[in-house]
């Protein structure tokens, strides 16, 4: 019996893929320069099928990798050529919606936006909104603890998931819930990038749609002035739903791609969205506009309709892809700095552009200090790709030296595992490894991701019988 025989006994032929051409569809996620062809792909429709697959992997000592929609930007869903890729695209049912409990239970392959679409007409929504929300799966969101523009006020995936059914790396199906008394295993699982098991059922919190939403576009001469406005808004005690910033290069790209019509001579634009009870939103909008003017904004536009709001957001949401219009190739970076260091770090990125002759477009979640520098290069020009790599790495160093993080929402995956030791000590990483060993002692669940060097778990040490000596 081989792994293939066993999988073919679990799945009908159309849901086990071994054909090399079809396998190649799955060779990478959104980070396309890491590629591997999986040994085999399965398309389960139930948790039981996922569990059976994982048990086969356990039996043969074969690794497995979960994959949702493959939009990840850190190579998290990069397959193993010696392993099974478990794709959730056939697990797309919304199992229940209960508006009295403000809760929905969904399968992992359901797209992020599908949840909101299922309840929007009744005045509810699912808050985390990654820019990829039309495509990315909720299972992938759980694995990455994905954020989005509106996370400033509402938090990330981890703040909106109430329970999970998971298949453990041993193939057991276990429910973990915020209602469980004891360790917050739910909090540990969310953001674990598929290394602790596979989520097969997800209970999410739904929120009542706000009474009023207003979106402001403010144009500045440069990114420093925009940054100052962000600092002042936060300092004034206002928590907008979102504060996003784009610099001149990002604006140029968005204009070329989707003609978003931002003020032509802006060196930076700020998008500020306020939501909540109408009476509060109105007062806050006036205050935010005053702050923007005081910090040098030369033009402010308030969206008067849903259409106008969508138009303002269109430029921002298309920014990653849009950069393709002004550069043959680019690296999407994801780092975080304390909000008060934004100005300094952006100046540091400017200096890197000069030093290396590499352009960087900045699009970011300014409200929570989450930078998405887009490092532009021409892959046909010799050496440019390497220089872009260096600039991209240096940006992370800037984030770390300012007390920030190497990733705010795209995850570590394969891409940043080597940076982990710059942020964490060996003791920190060994301690995280204890969590890994508790869930996955065999190291079969998405191995090679997140952590820089593979570590073995070993047996649980035996209880040592010390003598209560005369220490004290």
């Amino acid at each position, binding site marked *: 019996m081989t792994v293939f025989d066993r999988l073919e006994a679990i799945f009908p032929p159309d849901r086990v893929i071994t054909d090399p051409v079809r396998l190649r569809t799955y060779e990478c996620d959104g980070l396309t320069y890491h590629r591997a062809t999986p040994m085999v792909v399965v398309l389960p429709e139930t948790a039981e099928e996922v569990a059976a697959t994982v048990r086969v992997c356990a039996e043969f000592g074969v690794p497995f990798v979960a994959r949702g929609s493959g939009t990840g930007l850190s190579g998290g869903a990069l397959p193993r050529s010696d392993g099974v890729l478990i794709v959730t695209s056939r697990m797309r049912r919304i199992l229940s919606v209960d508006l009295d*409990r403000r809760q929905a239970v969904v399968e992992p392959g359901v797209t992020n936006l599908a949840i909101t679409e299922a309840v929007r007409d009744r005045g509810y929504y699912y808050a985390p909104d990654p820019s990829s929300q039309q495509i990315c799966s909720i299972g992938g969101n759980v694995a990455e603890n994905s954020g989005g523009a509106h996370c400033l006020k509402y938090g990330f995936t981890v*703040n909106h998931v109430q329970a999970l059914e998971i298949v453990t790396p041993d193939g057991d199906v276990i429910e973990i819930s915020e209602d469980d008394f*004891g360790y917050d295993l739910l909090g540990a699982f969310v953001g674990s990038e598929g290394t602790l098991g596979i989520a097969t059922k997800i209970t999410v919190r739904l929120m009542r749609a706000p009474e009023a939403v207003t979106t402001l576009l403010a144009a500045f001469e440069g990114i420093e002035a925009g940054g100052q406005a962000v600092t002042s808004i936060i300092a004034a005690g206002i928590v907008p739903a979102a504060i996003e910033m784009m610099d001149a290069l990002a604006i140029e790209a968005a204009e070329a791609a989707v003609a978003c019509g931002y003020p032509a001579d802006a060196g930076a634009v700020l998008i500020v969205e306020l939501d909540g009870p109408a009476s*509060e939103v109105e007062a806050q909008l006036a205050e935010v506009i005053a702050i923007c003017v005081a910090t040098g904004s030369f033009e402010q536009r308030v969206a008067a309709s849903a259409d106008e709001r969508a138009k303002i957001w269109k430029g921002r949401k298309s920014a990653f892809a849009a950069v393709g219009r002004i550069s043959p190739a680019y690296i999407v970076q994801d780092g975080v700095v304390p909000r008060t260091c934004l100005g300094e770090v952006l100046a540091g990125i400017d200096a890197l552009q000069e030093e290396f002759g590499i352009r960087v477009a900045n699009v970011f979640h300014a409200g929570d200090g989450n930078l998405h520098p887009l490092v532009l290069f021409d892959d046909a020009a010799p050496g440019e790709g390497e220089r872009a790599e260096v600039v991209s790495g240096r940006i992370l160093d800037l984030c770390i030296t300012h*007390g*920030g993080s190497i990733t705010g929402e795209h995850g570590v995956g394969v891409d940043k595992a080597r940076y982990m030791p710059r*942020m964490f*000590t060996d003791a920190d990483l060994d301690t995280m490894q204890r969590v890994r060993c508790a869930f996955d002692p065999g190291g079969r669940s998405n191995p090679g991701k997140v952590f820089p060097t593979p570590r073995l778990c070993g047996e*649980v040490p035996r209880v040592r019988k*010390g003598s209560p000596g005369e220490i004290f």
Partner: protein
Amino acid sequence: MLGHTRVTIRDGGPADAVGGVVPRWVALPESVEEISVVLGACADADLAVTPAGGRTKLCWANPPERLDVLLDLSAMREVLEHVAGDLVVRVQAGIPVARLAETLAGAGQELALDVPFPEATIGGTLAAPSPGPRAFRYGNARDLLIGVTVVLSDGTIARAGGKVVKNVAGYDLGKLFTGSYGTLGVIAEATFRLHPLPADRRWLTFECEGWEDAGELLRSQLEPSAVEIDHPAEGLTTLAALFEGPAARDRAEAAREVLGGGEVRAEAPSWWGRPPGLPLASLRCHVPPHVPEGVSVRGSLATGVYLAAGAADLDAWRSRLPADARLVGLAGEFTGDRWGPIPSLPLMRRVKERFDPERRMSPGRLAGGV
């Protein structure tokens, strides 16, 4: 007596008991390194340790199976870093929540937790969390925690998270340690995201017959920060909702219209966010629960998280609750099973084994010997 560690140590006494178990010594570390030295020394001698903060909940959950050293964090009570512009604060775990609140209020900010006991510490609040009223809006302690320093039973010092509000690098050990009741290690330092203090706060209180009235409020767009119910063993049930923000008063008045009555005040009702009495149980139920005679229940209709007093036979009550409801005995005497079902218990056991294989950290305080 603690020659080589130089950490302040005194003999334990009845006042230091944890659920009736008296420790032989009390250690008072003053830094992360001192915690590590103490735990290292305890590992060498196989001494069992229980951390203590403000000691307001030290008796909650099971007594430890064994206890030699009470690790008292009361000497670690500093704000280490408060960057108001970042809305972030880093503190030592022994800082009382009330003391922290004072510092933060000076900058017009708060840690949005409702801890009713001024002596309660940050470490205790993380290790033994029990959501307060505003958890509906701001989440629980785990949702506000962005970074942590912990010390494990072998003295290992480990950090996770950081001091930025958004960060997905590595596993979130801080979350894992919330709810751990001192069984995984010691929380030594913690970093939180803060919120601006709201411009105004108004409470709407409303005496009601049943629990259904709150539904209208939750379906409205008035965005209460909390919707609480006080259901005493005898007498009328009260519903109360908190509104925060510059227009809090208008919104509370509008909510009054929705409910068709009630009173709007600038102060919280006296029972707001306080435990209803003993024996105390935690109830999680997402539909209005059945409440037995003689039992009082207080908590959030919005999140389905309540505290209940006066029920000793939890098994009997559980049999009248939906299967996914959870009822756990926190403090006091209970007959039968105080824990009820915990589906993820097998995984918790495995985590415990990896973090504390020799079972020195508050062994047996949680369900299933964890």
